[in-house]
């Protein structure tokens, strides 16, 4: 009953968001303020809203994806529905807040509420250890970033003497403050969008329900970082250093994530890493500091929302029907092509999604990525190092992306010509490798509630490429396509040989996580124990010692109370003398 109510509310709200986007489309930018109070002389806290085309774009994305996800969840999820749907709705609300807010504080509220919702939703299956730890990790890492974000707000807000986003950049500000502020904001962005060095939480957030991954960890929340920088673009443009830092971070991240994706053996994990690297591509576009760079980034955000959401939903279908998205499990069904035949819709839509991700010409990802490359190229041509760096790394990433897309596609859906080692390739990390053939007859397509969103998003993954007119730089298109092919071929040949060599360093994802464990978590736990010990054995010891001293003194005085009057007399006489001496000392 309650569950149904919440479902209705959720879907309704998403539709409302879409409606709002539709209504606001093409309307002149507006701002409204409500509430507000002075704290001190130079801090005026207020809630402001604004609408402009950026808002509209994001609203559309959020609305559509969340609508799809809400529908999909009806089929996907059937326990703890109420809390789940409520949280998803709350998440959508807070994302909308972030998008429409013109006040840094209001934005921060939405920003962290998203984090909280993501935490709670990742922990939806709280029976599972990986879900628990993943959720905690996600919240803590983003929170760490958010502290930086908060400080950034202080620096910028007090620097510009306003906390209204639309007024930032109007008044003069000291360059130092500007750089510091933007860098601090960047910390928050990095945390939210899982860029290096705070990237490790996103892959671990995958134990959450797939729809959640689709909505939060692919389409919207992680993209909020991109949105934020786009929102504050004028400020960032003024801060050269910050943009360079952003560029470096982005480039490192996209390659790093792509490599990790190449070695992942679980569909959702591959997708998570690819999300990280795709986000990095958007940041790369932003870091160029040019208008078409920004445009390209937002374009990529749009398309990426479509196809990555789609991919996650497909993974969700696999997870839901098969029970696992690990390659090794899927292989069992695939070996007789069961998967492909039994779930045609999933297969087709996922293929479309992967194509878009890999940048196959004609699909959405292709165009958006090319626009980034093109922007980078223009910038580089104007003789900018940043431009060159971005250009090179994006191209490399394109190749790597193609590789892991093809690898995923082939291994999941196609039986290997070389049957030998077909399974062996993934056995080593499989608990139940020598299980007999699963009965693939039970396997069948998901319900239409789940499939409809797939189709919608698939349409998006194809069509959005042509969203802002079809302008194509043939040279670049050719280059990227060739790179994609170069990336795809090795994957294909490896698959033909039924081999999947995974370098240890990649499998370990460059050992970042254990390092953090060793450098951060362990010392903190150690310190915690130290503190408790200190309270108990140092401070507490003083208190206890005081008490004990009192008791001892008391006992001592009782000992002095011998009952012998002459002791008292002696004590008295001694006391007289002592007093005389003491007072004499003090007196003179």
């Amino acid at each position: 009953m309650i569950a149904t109510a919440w479902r209705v509310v959720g879907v309704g709200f998403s539709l409302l968001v879409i409606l709002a986007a539709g209504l606001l489309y093409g309307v002149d930018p507006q701002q409204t303020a409500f509430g507000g109070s002075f704290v001190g002389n130079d801090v005026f806290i207020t809630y402001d809203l604004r609408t402009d085309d950026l808002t509209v774009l994001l609203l559309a994305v959020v609305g559509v994806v969340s609508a799809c996800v809400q529908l999909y969840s009806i089929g996907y999820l059937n326990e703890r529905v109420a809390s789940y749907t409520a949280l998803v709705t709350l998440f959508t609300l807070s994302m909308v807040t972030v998008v429409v807010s013109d006040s840094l504080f209001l934005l921060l509220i939405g920003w962290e509420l998203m984090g909280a919702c993501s935490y709670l939703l990742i922990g939806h299956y709280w029976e599972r250890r990986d879900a628990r730890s993943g959720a905690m990790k996600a919240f803590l890492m983003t929170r760490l970033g958010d502290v930086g974000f908060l400080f950034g707000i202080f620096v910028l807000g007090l620097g510009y003497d306003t906390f209204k986003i639309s007024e930032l950049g109007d008044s003069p500000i000291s360059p130092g403050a500007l750089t510091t502020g933007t860098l601090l904001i960047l910390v928050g962005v990095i945390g939210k969008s899982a860029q290096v060095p705070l990237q490790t939480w996103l892959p671990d957030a995958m134990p959450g329900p797939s729809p959640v991954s689709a909505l939060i960890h692919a389409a919207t929340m992680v993209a909020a970082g991109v949105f934020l920088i786009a929102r504050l673009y004028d400020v960032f443009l003024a801060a050269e250093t910050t943009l360079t830092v952003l560029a470096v971070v982005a480039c490192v991240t996209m390659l790093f994530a792509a490599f990790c994706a190449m070695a992942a053996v679980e569909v959702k994990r591959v997708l998570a890493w690819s999300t990280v690297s795709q986000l990095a591509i958007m940041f790369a576009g932003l870091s160029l500091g040019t208008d078409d760079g920004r445009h390209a980034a937002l374009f990529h955000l749009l398309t990426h929302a479509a196809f990555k959401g789609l991919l996650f939903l497909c993974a969700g279908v696999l997870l839901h029907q098969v029970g696992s998205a690990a390659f090794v499990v899927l292989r069992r069904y695939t070996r007789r092509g069961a998967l492909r035949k039994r779930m045609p819709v999933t297969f087709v839509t996922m293929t479309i999604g992967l194509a878009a991700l890999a940048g196959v010409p004609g699909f959405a990802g292709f165009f958006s990525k090319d626009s980034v490359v093109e922007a980078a190229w223009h910038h580089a041509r104007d003789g900018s190092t940043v431009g060159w760096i971005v250009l090179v790394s994006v191209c490399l990433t394109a190749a790597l992306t193609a590789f892991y897309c093809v690898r995923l596609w082939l291994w999941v859906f196609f039986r290997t010509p070389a049957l030998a080692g077909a399974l062996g390739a993934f056995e080593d990390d499989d608990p139940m490798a020598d299980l007999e053939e699963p009965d693939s007859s039970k396997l069948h397509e998901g319900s239409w509630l789940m499939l409809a969103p797939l189709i919608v998003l698939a349409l998006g993954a194809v069509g959005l490429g042509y969203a802002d007119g079809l302008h194509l730089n043939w040279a670049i298109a050719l280059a990227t396509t060739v790179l994609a092919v170069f990336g795809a071929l090795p994957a294909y040949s490896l698959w033909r040989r039924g081999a999947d060599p995974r370098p240890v360093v990649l499998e370990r994802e460059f050992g970042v996580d254990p390092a953090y464990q060793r450098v951060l978590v362990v010392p903190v736990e150690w310190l915690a124990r130290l503190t408790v010990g200190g309270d108990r054995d140092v401070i507490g010891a003083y208190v206890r010692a005081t008490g004990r001293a009192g008791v001892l003194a008391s006992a001592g005085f009782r000992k002095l109370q011998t009952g012998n009057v002459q002791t008292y007399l002696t004590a008295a006489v001694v006391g007289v003398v002592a007093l005389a001496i003491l007072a004499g000392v003090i007196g003179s």
Partner: protein
Amino acid sequence: MPLIIPLLLAVALFCIGVYGVLARRNAITMLMSFELMLNAVNLNLIAFDAWHVDGLATGQTLAVFVITIAAAEIGLGLAIVLLLFRGHGHVDADAARDLLEQERGAEQ
């Protein structure tokens, strides 16, 4: 006669008295030591009185009072000692130790 002589004598008396009070166990002896101390006081008073001669002989007056006080104290003291003897069967001041607190239920 210089003032110092009686004063020294008085101090000597007083110290003897203090010694007696502290060292002797017998209550009667202690009372006698008190007498010594009080007499030291008297000696002082007389000496000082003789030293600065003021109109009404304050020192001597007080000396008379002190003698009275001593008498009264000794009277009461003897009574108490008597009582002690009746109760305890001896007059050793340091042997009367009934009034030590009992160790009971020290921690409840």
